[in-house]
């Protein structure tokens, strides 16, 4: 990208380019940075003693951490622990399923689909352009008690009268996989497609079996792609609150951390608790992102040497 930078860095010229980026930068400052800071100002701010409304405090020197302490207590030992554990297990399970289904698909399209590649790629991209909620609605239709899924089960004599939309965790996990797996497959496909084919041929020429080539060459080389794909899928999954609500008729048995946040802010009007929870969630995701960056850098270094 540096070589495309173009114009020589002269002082007044530089100002012109800065001026061009100004509207965008100003927009993001006002509507991304300030709002983000507002989360902290509300979480560490005061509560109006009478109206119980939130009173944001902007100066970090006057921040109070009592609300945050309470939320952390609830997360680590109180009523929110179940929700957090459930969120982690749903996301972990969904990610595992994404790998299990997504890796073979991405691998096949990237390396073996010769004649059908165009059509397959189009089919992989298509879900991106179908509204997420419509894709979920499709499952709600299929999983009705008298819906096609139960009729299929009845047809092969495996029951067929179950209400799948009543707070079943498998329904929610499959729904999450269905919703987010396109975001997993495409980056992984791109990584596998870029993989140096000469290395694989060299491995085969040196007598390794296809399985061994896959285990020793393809899989290690695809780790960065796999990590990128996982992060892209996991980030939105952690904040999801609509998939589980939609697919379990709002049952509390499948609630995730996002539901709690949404309820605190829009339902029961406890912005301070909601804001604190968002900070906890962001901290969790930050740890994840850092881990991802460390692994990616290490993998790049390993490939380079």
């Amino acid at each position: 990208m540096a070589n495309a930078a173009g114009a020589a860095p002269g002082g007044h010229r530089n100002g012109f380019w800065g001026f061009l980026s100004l509207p965008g930068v100003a927009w993001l400052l006002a509507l991304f940075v300030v709002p983000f800071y507002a989360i902290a100002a509300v979480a560490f701010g005061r509560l109006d003693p009478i109206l119980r409304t939130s009173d944001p405090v902007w100066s970090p020197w006057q921040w109070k951490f009592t609300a945050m302490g309470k939320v952390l207590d609830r997360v680590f030992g109180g009523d929110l622990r179940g929700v957090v554990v459930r969120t982690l297990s749903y996301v972990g399970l969904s990610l595992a399923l994404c790998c299990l289904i997504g890796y073979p698909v991405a691998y096949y399209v990237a390396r073996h689909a010769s004649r059908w590649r165009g059509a397959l790629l189009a089919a992989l991209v298509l879900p991106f352009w179908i509204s997420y909620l419509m894709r979920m609605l499709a499952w709600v239709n299929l999983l009705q008690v008298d819906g096609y899924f139960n009729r299929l089960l009845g047809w092969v004599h495996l029951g067929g009268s179950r209400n799948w939309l009543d707070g079943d965790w498998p329904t929610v996990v499959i729904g999450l996989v269905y919703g987010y797996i396109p975001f997993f497959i495409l980056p992984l496909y791109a990584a596998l497609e870029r993989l140096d084919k000469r290395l694989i041929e060299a491995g085969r020429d040196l007598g390794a079996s296809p399985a061994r080539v896959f285990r020793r060459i393809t899989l290690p080389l695809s780790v960065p792609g796999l990590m990128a794909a996982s992060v892209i899928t996991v980030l939105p999954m952690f904040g999801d609150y609509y998939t589980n609500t939609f697919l379990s008729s709002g049952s509390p048995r499948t609630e995730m951390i996002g539901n709690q946040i949404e309820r605190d802010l829009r339902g029961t009007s406890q912005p301070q608790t909601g804001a604190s929870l968002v900070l906890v969630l962001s901290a969790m995701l930050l740890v994840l992102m850092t881990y991802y960056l460390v692994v990616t850098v290490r993998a790049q270094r390993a490939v380079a040497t």
Partner: protein
Amino acid sequence: MKRNRPGRHPFGLATITWLYILWSLVPVLVAMRISFNSGKSRSAFQSLSWRWYFTDPAKSVWHDETLVQPLRNSIKLAALSMLITTPIGVTMAIGLQRWRGRLSKASNALMLFPLVTPEIVMGVALFLVFTQVYTGVPRGFTTQLLGHITFSISYVVVIVRGRLAAIGPQYEEAARDLGANRLQALRLVLLPMLGPAIFASLMVVFAGSIDDFVISSFLSTGASSETVPMKIYAGGRATATPALNALATIMLVFTLAAVSLAAIIMRQMRLRQGGAEDAQLGSLAAVG
């Protein structure tokens, strides 16, 4: 593409792939078919009809104001987001591509952050800022529009910068050597060359906005600012008629029309310009 080593075709992998594709698309096709149901059921198909689109005098999408309103909101929101975000994003991309210095590095990082921020975090942030700080902004449609623009800007910057890197500085330099000033070089040389990327940006922003649920929902004030995804969310759980499927199908047709149009026009432009920019379609897909 021929492999050096023909080997066996991996039928197991092929089967998994085709099954996955069936699984990913068939439910949506079934939902679309249900929208043409003549009966009230959303799970069993009776016979083909336009009932839930036009002919039902009270409950079809055409006649039910509670379905028309979200449709109108969604399209208005997406169209305005697209028209406002794209110029901001394009100028920002051009600026960031050439701007040097510490402030520029910070701006670059700032531009990347929205891409990795989970929607719920951004939704909460915007909700709090509009209820606590920018209280003068009328809540509802206006705040939704501001929110959609905020999460769309980075997409445009990424798409346009990809194209800028491919073009390189030489065309502008040639224009400058031939006597154009900097603005003329931008307007007469660079902008036309950015055409496909700008068009892709318009469509990506449109599709992203029309599909958004979380931000719209956090910034909504009720029925007057309900969008189609919100309507699907609210109606899918309650007892709804196939009109909801019809509404979703109409949205799908809108989005796919926008995307196909983008693909066709970009291919035309590419053929005319003859440039090597097959990364364009890829970026369109990768960003969506």
